[in-house]
């Protein structure tokens, strides 16, 4: 009994540390393979490159925790950045007001996703968010006339383009603002998911929806809110993207949901809901970014990069299956079945 507990505990630690261990191993390999990997210039790049996917993945994780999914994150990001840029550049409104409008837009687009699911009773968020993904993309194309909106005011660019300190010789002068924002957001989400009622309810709904409903959780409210949260984080991602490219362009969200889902899954969040944590997702985000960055440094073509990332997702999910005992269960059932036939 005792040893069983110990092995379960070990499995649990491995479950949480798995992606982190993989990440550390990868960093060691990359530092050996390329001398420019472990330089401050490159680490600065990595810390900046991870932030957009970092925010998208955070919202994606919350959706997947309820056994849902948000395929529209990419174009929610795009559309909120486009709306923000139109307010700030074309209409000449106050940049802070425009930032606020951008965030509200993201939350509204998320609310639409949530209501389609809970009020219109669309069968699965895969369908509703796939539909809204196209709609948001179309609106972004129409609203911009398919031309990027440039000359973004400094106040909006600050998050995506600036460093914590304006003096580049100091340490803080090398830390991108968006990276700090991402760390703060992950800490905040960790507290939110573990210590607030809504956070606990998200896990409850994902773990067993009927049980949650029976024990008095307002399931529809929770399932709507997760998409609003996803819209919120996507909008923050949009602010960073706008700063990073000094433009809001209508196709910026193309396929962004892929990396977000990948980061969440690599981070150990279960697709069936109820299981997963921010640390895992964080490692997933960093892992994908470091992987792409490292492969870029090694001049590996992006076609091959795609294969590697696909393989990493498969391995991560396979580990998840084995860890949760699903694999052993299937094997055992097969054996019993074979015996029965005999």
């Amino acid at each position, binding site marked *: 009994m005792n040893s069983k507990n110990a092995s379960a505990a070990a499995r649990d630690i*491995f479950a949480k540390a*798995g992606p982190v*261990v*993989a990440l550390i*191993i*990868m960093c060691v*390999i*990359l530092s050996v*393979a*390329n001398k*420019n990997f472990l*330089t401050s*210039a*490159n680490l*600065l*790049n990595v810390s*900046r*490159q991870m932030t*957009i996917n970092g925010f998208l993945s955070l919202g994606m994780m919350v959706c997947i925790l309820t056994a849902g999914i948000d395929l529209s994150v990419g174009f929610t990001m795009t559309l909120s950045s486009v709306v923000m840029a139109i307010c700030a550049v074309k209409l000449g409104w106050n940049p802070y007001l425009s930032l606020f409008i951008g965030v509200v837009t993201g939350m509204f687009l998320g609310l639409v996703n949530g209501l389609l699911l809970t009020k219109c009773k669309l069968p699965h968020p895969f369908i509703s968010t796939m539909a809204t993904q196209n709609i948001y993309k179309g609106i972004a*194309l129409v609203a*911009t*006339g*398919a*031309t*990027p909106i*440039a000359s973004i005011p400094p106040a909006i660019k600050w998050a995506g*383009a600036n460093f914590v300190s304006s003096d580049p010789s100091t340490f803080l002068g090398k830390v991108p603002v968006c990276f700090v924002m991402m760390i703060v957001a992950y800490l905040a989400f960790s507290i939110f998911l573990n210590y607030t009622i809504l956070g606990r309810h998200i896990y409850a709904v994902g773990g067993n929806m009927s049980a949650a409903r029976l024990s008095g959780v307002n399931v529809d409210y929770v399932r709507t809110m997760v998409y609003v949260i996803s819209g919120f984080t996507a909008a923050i991602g949009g602010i960073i*993207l706008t700063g*990073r*490219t*000094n*433009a809001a*362009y*209508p*196709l*910026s969200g*193309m*396929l962004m949901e892929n990396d977000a889902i990948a980061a969440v899954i690599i981070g150990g969040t279960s697709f069936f809901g109820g299981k997963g944590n921010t640390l895992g997702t964080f490692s997933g985000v960093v892992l994908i970014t470091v992987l*792409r*960055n*490292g*492969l*870029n*440094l*090694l*001049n*590996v*073509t*992006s*076609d*091959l990069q*795609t294969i*590697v990332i696909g*393989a*990493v997702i498969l*391995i*991560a999910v396979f*580990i998840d299956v*084995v*860890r949760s005992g699903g694999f052993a269960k299937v094997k055992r059932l097969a054996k019993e079945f074979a015996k029965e036939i005999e």
Partner: protein
Amino acid sequence: MKLSRIFSLCLAASLLTGAPAAAADAGKDITVIVMALNSDYWHMVEAGAKLAGQDLGYNVNVIGPNAETDAIGQANMVEDAAANKVAAIVLAPNDPVALIPAVGNAKAAGVPVVVIDMALTTQDESLYESFIGTDNYEAGGMAAGYLIKKLPSGCEVAIIRGIVGSSNHDGRCNGASDAFKAAGVKVVSIQPADSERGKAVTVAENVLQTNPGIKAIYCTNDEMALGAYQAVANIQKQKDILVMGFDGSFGALDSIEAGELTASLAQMPIDMGYSGVKAAVDFLAGKKLEKRIKSATVIVDKANLAKFKADIKEKLSKAN
């Protein structure tokens, strides 16, 4: 624990397969970042760039994102190349605006950038050392001029164009439509098909449905021209409707040879890749570069196809 070992081994294997491509000789590396490495056009740019690397004694790496829409992925590649301390970057930006900060970061890191193919929309010309590309407006006019000579006056034509907002396609489209209008040819439809063959089939079918009288379809790239030809052939009108593309890709050349496409306004991607790297090398040698270098174009039809193909073949064989 065994599994974690498998996991890390797989990672290691996947990373190490890429390792031999890693740069060896610092200061002699030039990274060429194209819009996407998914078409003949960019593979020809790649061949030209590598040829220049061989001729000039530089180690040229050619990379690019999976899709021409992936501007942020390309921006990351520019920054990664700068962090990798390459001697110079040759960039074909896939967005005229979104790549500007990344180019600025490269410049701040002391890595010179030569822009090819698509211009950056910026007033600050100090960001890059030189821009080498086709004058798309002029080339669009040239293509229209070729068609006008073959068409009866006052007839109707359609234009199928690449994504709205791409300065390349804007130029190719506007140059042609202005030239058509000036010659009294009616442009009855201008539709985007996002540079894709499949989309162009649908778009052309719709255009032919609404405007059955058109005599020519001009497309702002070859993929779309091949798609448009498919739509024309489906209703057996290939004798009545001329289809012209833009780029001079292998697919289009084969199609012209088979008597399908009428012509293609060919850019010289091999030359562009070559001169991009050469400009970077010249800059590193301290030579002064012109800010705007026009790259050559030529109209390829059945008459000059053989010579054009032989020329490409010779250059490609040298690059490999």
